[in-house]
């Protein structure tokens, strides 16, 4: 309990300017006085929070990440040193870093990252549009829900490899084939997020909206969409992961002249049993994932703050 971030009634509440104008704050008296379960960590948090600069906040947000990173690196290095597996199978962090340093500065690598990101973004954007439309239609039109609602999850379970022959039939070996498998992977996830969100919009909010004159698109735009937003966001996050899976698989399938891509590199290094560079590329994929998640996290945080969820 001591380290809750949400729902915890016990929040820092320093004596702000207004309060100190009214009366002098008792020094050292800000901490505590709250729940019976108030203990060391809470007190720490209460005392530490308050009027601080953004860099202080970023700094506070960064140290657990850095600590986690450090722990992972140390653990990894220890495993390597333990000699559990020979180092050509499980290279240590330093070797991987050197390996990365070899490839990262090359133009090919930059171009691979750019190509992959471009595909991910366009494919995901396309999947988002398809997912939204599909999700809203299925969530709100009874007949469609009965007809194809279950189909969405079923489609989602279909592994990308099963789609490749169809993708080749439809798009030959073009970018289109890659986008096709991305959309097939991500759109159902997003649609499911939309459906879940729409399903759990509190009915009273919709009734109010109708009474305020919201009809058709207006009802979606002004009531249902914002109410379902958190769930839609969660679905988009899952959709991004699906998109990325499909993309990596798709880039193994479709190689386009002079256009290296991360999925292809992943495949090549795996084919060559080159653990060193394989792990390097995995780290790059992880880093991209972290960045994207930071984006989602920021949006989520903003929504929660606005709605008083923290």
């Amino acid at each position: 309990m001591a380290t809750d971030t949400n729902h915890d009634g016990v929040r820092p509440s320093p004596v702000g300017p207004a309060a100190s104008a009214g009366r002098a704050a008792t020094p050292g008296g800000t901490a505590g006085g709250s729940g019976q379960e108030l203990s060391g960590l809470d007190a720490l948090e209460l005392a530490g929070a308050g009027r601080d600069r953004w860099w202080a906040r970023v700094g506070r947000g960064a140290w657990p990440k850095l600590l986690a990173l450090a722990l992972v690196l140390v653990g990894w290095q220890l495993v390597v040193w333990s000699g559990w597996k020979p180092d050509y199978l499980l290279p240590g962090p330093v070797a991987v870093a050197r390996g990365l340093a070899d490839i990262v500065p090359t133009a090919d690598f930059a171009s691979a990252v750019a190509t992959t990101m471009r595909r991910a973004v366009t494919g995901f954007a396309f999947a988002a549009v398809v997912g939204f439309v599909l999700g809203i239609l299925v969530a709100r039109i009874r007949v469609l829900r009965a007809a194809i609602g279950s189909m969405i999850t079923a489609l989602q379970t279909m592994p990308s490899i099963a789609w490749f022959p169809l993708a080749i039939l439809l798009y030959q070996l073009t970018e289109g084939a890659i986008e096709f498998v991305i959309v097939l992977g991500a759109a159902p996830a997003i649609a499911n997020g939309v459906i879940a969100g729409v399903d759990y919009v509190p009915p009273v909010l919709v009734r109010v909206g109708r009474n305020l004159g919201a009809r058709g698109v207006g009802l979606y735009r002004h009531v249902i969409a914002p109410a379902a937003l958190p769930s839609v966001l969660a679905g988009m996050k899952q959709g991004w992961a699906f998109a990325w899976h499909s993309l990596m698989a798709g880039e193994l399938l479709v190689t386009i002249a002079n256009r290296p891509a991360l999925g292809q590199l992943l495949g090549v290094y795996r084919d060559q049993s080159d653990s060193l560079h394989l792990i390097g590329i995995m780290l790059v994929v992880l880093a991209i994932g972290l960045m994207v998640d930071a984006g989602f996290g920021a949006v989520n945080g903003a929504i929660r703050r606005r709605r008083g969820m923290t």
Partner: protein
Amino acid sequence: TDGKTTLRLGYFPNVTHAVPLVGIGTGRYAKALGSTATLKPTSFNAGPDAVTALLSGSIDAAYVGPNPTVNAWAQSHGSAVEVIAGAASGGAALVVDPKIKSWSELTGADIATPQLGNTQDVSARYFLKQHGLSTTKSGGGDVHIKPMANGDAVTAYKSGAIDGAWIPEPYASQLVGAGGHVLVDERSLWPGGKFVVTDLLVRKDFAKAHPDVVTRLLRGQVQTVDYLKKEPAAAQQVVSEQIGTVSGKPLDPALVKQAWPKIEFTNDPLADTLVAGARHAESVDLLDPVDLKGIYQLDPLNKVLRAAGEPTVSAGTS
């Protein structure tokens, strides 16, 4: 368990792996190992997984292609594995759309290979280069090389997405069945019409610890190769069924039959061709220079061959 060693042997459910398929399927391997070791066959779908398994000690020996062989050797800096026998030669061809009738007409064509840097891929790039056709790793150049899974290549060819493929059996036969024609049988490009497609890798520490097991395994293989040559029809049947056992679907016997003459089963690892293949790969920039010296350990095989009254094999000239 009862003092017996377990020999964990990797192989692919694939026609070029007919030797282990038949050796396991007819019980010849198990019989040869006798009471010294229990055979535990493990099938793979891709060379890299077999190499990872071998290097990590999950299996003790594996039939793989020359490309994974070189990778396993190179990645472990020659410390982990050695080649103790060959298993098959040939069985790869460039099959293209009938409208392409000569090397020169390949310009601008999309040609599939199984994967970047694998045996067929290297051959394709090398021999295209010999014929004045450039390629790039990322699919550019005069001929566009597009690595993809063999099954996808067949689908892609049928749907017109590619113009041909440099591909192993039985896929080459399948392409021919789908209207392609064999522009180049790879055997014609190699001196003596032979080049290695499958060999037998073993972990060095296993070979050291259990030399008798290795010898018995080789004995089983030699007998199997013999059988393959003498009873092709029966062997083909076993190959088809054994693929079915492993993968859940038997390979069409007609296809096995069609592919059979394109492959030669041999105990000879065709050492020179492996080395040549590596040089080819270096020359098309798919492999960092690697010293393959010491990759072969053919003494046990030669002992077995001598005992069987067959000609011995060599570890090559380089």
